[in-house]
């Protein structure tokens, strides 16, 4: 029974707090089940399931803190863990940036949990893999895929009266389909909270189409091209940019949001005016925990129990908010906005097909791979296209092209915005397909 209810979790946390002798004590209790199935070369290679339940106690004396963890829950073990955290805290060096723990908080009502996902069993996983393998085998294509599901809970409590509880589920699925001759490769990725919204056959069929359509790729000259980035292609670049919006780094002069001559670019228009990026833990398509430390959410959200609220990061191209540690926010006298758990980029109503139809000349990119930062000053990244790159002319996909290496910054990209489609869920975020002009491809790759 790895998923404890709110009441069960609180009972254990309160018991732990009753043993505490430190100035401040915080308890976090989390557990869950994660299962997976992996296949390659058209056969299942591994599958399994694991359960975990663990409790962590953080004790603080003055500005010294110590943490101890345990996965046994009898009274003696719990008390021993509290004592051990207290011993570690007493021996720890002072942290001058320590902030007192938060008291009771008011949280939004969010629901990142699905009973359908909680009910996943090995038979479901085997069926999901079969639904993906079977069509590939029948068409003499080679499938390699991976499905991982997680059902978990996380509860926080501390001696100042903070109480928080969250349950979350998630399922991630990726599929790569290759042609038997190794000349074509296609890919699809899905992630859901509720597994009834996942269809591995549907995703696999897209990967199959891309694999078949990508053989006999032609080499185009590297250079600046109009591209249509599917959400699977833009997500990492956007996520990296959102991960660079820390206020302290900007204040310290070592961020793309630092300003020449000192200060930050908060309030400046940095992107095309159609660019709006926000986070909202209550969004029904990507529900996340209402507090940092609630688990789930691929993007962080902090861990200290701060409320997650609707925050606009970029509004019509203008940088509206950055996120802060509690220490730095207090020092600067600004609200201690935590990093989000996920983000939403507002888009339009067009489908991917509509974007293709309106493109005179361009390149459709399925995904980008091996993305690494080249220059943190400008958020310049490099990486390559992979698993389905196609040339578009007069609104139609004409032929597959060889993969390119790119060197591009999401900041420049979001200034070169041509059009946006309807946002879709990707990696826990909502991102529209993007049409971008002058996207920089710097060399060709022979990789399929």
């Amino acid at each position: 029974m790895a998923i404890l209810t709110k009441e069960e979790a609180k009972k254990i946390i309160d018991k732990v707090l009753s043993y505490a002798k430190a100035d401040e004590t915080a308890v976090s209790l989390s557990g869950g089940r994660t299962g997976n199935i992996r296949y390659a070369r058209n056969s299942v290679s591994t599958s399994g399931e694991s359960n975990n339940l663990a409790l962590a106690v953080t004790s603080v004396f003055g500005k010294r803190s110590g943490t101890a963890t345990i996965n046994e829950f009898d009274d003696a073990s719990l008390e021993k863990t509290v004592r051990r955290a207290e011993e570690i805290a007493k021996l720890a060096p002072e942290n001058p940036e320590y902030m007192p723990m938060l008291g009771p908080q008011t949280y939004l009502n969010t629901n990142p949990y699905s009973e359908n996902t909680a009910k996943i069993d090995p038979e479901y996983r085997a069926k999901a893999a079969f639904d993906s393998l079977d069509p590939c085998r029948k068409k003499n294509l080679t499938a390699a895929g991976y499905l991982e599901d997680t059902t978990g809970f996380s509860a926080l409590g501390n001696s100042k009266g903070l109480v928080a509880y969250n349950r979350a589920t998630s399922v991630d699925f990726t599929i790569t389909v290759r042609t038997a001759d190794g000349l074509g490769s296609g890919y699809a990725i899905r992630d859901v909270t509720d597994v009834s919204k996942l269809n591995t056959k549907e995703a696999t069929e897209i990967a199959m189409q891309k694999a078949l359509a990508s053989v006999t790729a032609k080499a185009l000259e590297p250079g600046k091209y109009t591209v249509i980035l599917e959400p699977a292609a833009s997500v990492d670049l956007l996520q990296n940019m959102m991960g660079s919006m820390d206020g302290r780094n900007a204040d310290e002069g070592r961020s793309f949001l630092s300003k020449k001559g000192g200060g930050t670019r908060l309030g400046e228009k940095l992107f095309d005016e159609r660019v709006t990026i926000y986070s909202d833990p209550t969004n029904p398509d990507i529900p996340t925990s209402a507090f940092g430390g609630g688990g789930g959410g691929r993007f962080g959200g902090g861990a200290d129990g701060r409320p997650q609220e609707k925050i606009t990061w970029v509004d019509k191209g203008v940088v509206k908010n950055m996120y802060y540690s509690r220490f730095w926010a207090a020092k600067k006298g600004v609200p201690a906005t935590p990093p989000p758990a996920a983000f939403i980029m507002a888009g339009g109503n067009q489908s991917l097909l509509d974007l293709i139809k309106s493109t005179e000349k361009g390149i459709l990119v399925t995904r980008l791979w091996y993305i690494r930062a080249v220059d943190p000053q400008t958020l310049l990244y490099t990486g390559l296209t992979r698993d389905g790159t196609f040339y578009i002319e007069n609104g139609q996909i004409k032929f597959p092209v060889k993969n390119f290496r790119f060197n591009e910054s999401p900041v420049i990209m979001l200034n070169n915005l041509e059009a946006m489609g309807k946002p879709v869920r990707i990696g826990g975020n909502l991102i529209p397909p993007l049409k971008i002009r002058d996207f920089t491809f710097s060399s060709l790759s022979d990789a399929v």
Partner: protein
Amino acid sequence: MTTHHQKPKTHLNRRDFNQLLGMSAAGLLLPTMPAFSHAVSADELVGNYIDVSTKKRLADAGLNAAKAMGATYSDVRIGRYLNQFVLTRENKVQGIVNTISYGVGIRVIVNGCWGFAAVADPKDEATVAKCAATAVSIAKANARLLTEPVVLAPQKGYGEVSWKAPIKQNAFEVPIKEKVDLLLTANAAAMTNGANFVNSVLFMVNEQKYFASTDGTYADQDIHRIGPSFTVTAVDAQSGKFATRNSLSAPMGMGYDYLQTNPSDKVGGVTTRYGKGYDMLEDITLAAKQAKEKLTAKSVEAGKYDLVLDPSHLWLTIHESVGHPLELDRVLGYEANYAGTSFATLDKLQSKSFQYGSKEVNLVADKTQVGSLGAVGYDDEGVGTKKWDLVRDGILVNYQAIRDQVHILGEKESHGCCYADNWSSVQFQRMPNVSLQAGKTPLSVQDMIKDVKKGVYIIGDGSFSIDQQRYNFQFGGQLFYEIKDGQIVGMLKDVAYQANTREFWNSCTAVCDQSDYRLGGAFNDGKGQPSQSSAVSHGSATARFNGVNVINTARKI
């Protein structure tokens, strides 16, 4: 807690580690811990937890149970994994984290099919036997979907053996205060020498692994690793520019002795580089000055240059463009959905004439190299470790393969490079140390540079990216120096080079001699789904590559 094929979901990978270093959140920074770790106090990280006879008793319980239930082969790994992180910035300790993870993982072959199960904190034989039963039941279930039964290369049993990393000082026995003092003293030196910010980290690992198999091997091993590193940042508020310089240290398969340097460990030149002893104070002092110098360095003019690559840089290029493409499981397609496949297909090996590199290029795999991250006595399926050729005189001659793969190569013996990153994860083929052998004729770095008309000398690893079949890559670095007519004329910035693996290695015209040979490496090479991380070293001497495409990475936003 019994689990099937349970693997750690997240690990401290390279990216997390870099984010950690760049992070500025207040309070304790808890790195992502290995699976099922307990946070403990530092004094729990020294001494023996259980003696060898107990481990043998537990292991035999697993082996016997598996055999009784029909396993034709089984192995039991009892692992105790200790980690310690010390994290600082400027004059502050941000975190001290100690973790322990202890458990047993059992792998079996039943009806020609693998099965695996693991259990945390096994206290008695019954627990281990039950875990073996789970592994057997999983193998039986998976056998129903089997297309090709496992073909396991024969392996002789070694009896009761042990292996210990030849460390001089166990880093876990060094008081925390000494480690904190080392980092804070280094940070202070950086600040005094012009840094605006500095983050530094000490990361220490001790893997205590016991391996037993039905082949009759009982191997008790004690493996130590250490990784000191830092990032120094210089900011020019006026221009709004900032520059960083990372440490030129390497993570090593050593104890705290890596931090005690002898003069012979140092290589002089445009900046000091290090062999098997690292002087953090010296390196960070130079780093602070160099980070400042970078702010006003000349921005490189894009074009073709001859590259002179220091071992502190070249290790990563070797890792990505040689180590990965020659993993046999990648070549066969088992990693197609994640890390990718390989350009180095079997027909290229079989042709016996595939020119991977120039005649100067000799690349060896080695699980025995003293002080390296990959060194062990026996791999995680009980195969005694060795050294073997991958590329000889430029020709592709072999891959990296384990017991259930070598038959594909027509070989009768595993290469001994099987590894699991935890007792709870199943072992599979992982990269051994892959290194470029030093040149046979005496050649110093100075003499190498003397012959270069238009070149860039690169030290330290930076940005790295390569495609899923390992053709096209792009690498940055930490320090770039312009070479003109045989002389270093000044620092460059905004440098990255792009090449194709085969063209790059065929453009290698010279490798310095053994006296310049040093190791680089990474703690966190990721592979598999769920991802497992492994530590690996790559050695080389400074090498020259002619006519490589250099790009300028400066942009305006």
